[in-house]
């Protein structure tokens, strides 16, 4: 049996199923990260002392990573636009760039974590580092998850383009929505953890 509404819109929702699915998933992600932001507010406002992020963390590296993620969002949306223009070569180029930028983000993050660990700074040190590692760690896992899906859509998953180009284009739109959401979370994490 064929999966319904992978391309055509469902009459009652006006959307293909995966589109509604990813938005419902992202709504649950808002609550997941929201709970962590809420916890941070509670911990920070009730602590007698809480350091400024810029005193403890590496702002230039995090700024670089912000630029990297923003750029990866543009390459992601360009890869989708390329498929809509039926330019598969350009899609591969932009999607590969997105994967590489995700990798750069993770490598920079690994350097940041490594520097902290080498100074004996672990999540167990205090609430500041506990929240920093929890929030950036969960975000990093999301980047990693996105990279796995991107790798699939560049590799074996790309075969769908020949058989069902519209369905493949929709798949890229879906992973794009997820990737932009991960970028959006970082846009808030960056000032809240590093700059305040």
């Amino acid at each position, binding site marked *: 049996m064929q999966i319904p509404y992978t391309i055509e819109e469902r009459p009652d*929702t*006006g*959307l293909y199923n995966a*589109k*509604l699915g990813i*938005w*419902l998933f992202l*709504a649950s992600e*808002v*609550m997941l990260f*929201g*709970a962590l*932001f*809420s916890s941070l*507010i*509670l911990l920070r*406002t*009730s602590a007698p002392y809480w350091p400024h992020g*810029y005193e403890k963390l590496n*702002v230039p590296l995090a*700024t670089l990573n*912000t*630029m990297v993620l*923003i*750029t990866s*969002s*543009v390459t*992601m*949306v*360009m890869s989708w*636009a390329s498929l*809509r*223009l039926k330019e598969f070569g350009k899609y591969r180029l932009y999607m590969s760039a997105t994967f590489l930028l995700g990798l750069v983000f993770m490598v920079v993050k690994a350097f940041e974590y490594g520097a902290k660990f080498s100074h004996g700074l672990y999540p167990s040190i205090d609430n500041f580092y506990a929240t920093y590692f929890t929030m950036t760690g969960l975000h990093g896992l999301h980047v990693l998850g996105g990279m796995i899906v991107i790798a699939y859509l560049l590799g074996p998953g790309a075969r769908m383009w020949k058989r069902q180009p519209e369905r493949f284009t929709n798949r890229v*739109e879906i992973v*794009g*929505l997820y990737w*932009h*959401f991960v*970028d*959006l979370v970082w*846009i*808030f994490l*960056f*000032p*809240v953890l590093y*700059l*305040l």
Partner: protein
Amino acid sequence: MSGHSVEEIKKETRVYVLVFVALAALTVVTVAVSYLHLSVGAAIAVALFIATIKGSLVAGFFMHLISERKLIYSVLILTVAFFIALMFLPLGGYLDRLG
């Protein structure tokens, strides 16, 4: 999703580049402001204001929320309401401490 014609899609890609430039510029601004070491209240207000603009640009253009179906808006309105409630939960603890 807006327009399907080649010309419309190409126009969209030009908008994506403009949004990217705006996001990069706003990142520089938010970092620059952080070096001014404003008072805590002002720093939070400025940082969150800029982050909200950046987030809106990403959601509006990259996630093409400016032209989406009504059902998605309904889902997101509900999400935003719960998110705001979540952000105000710590206030309960604050009021508790005040007695």
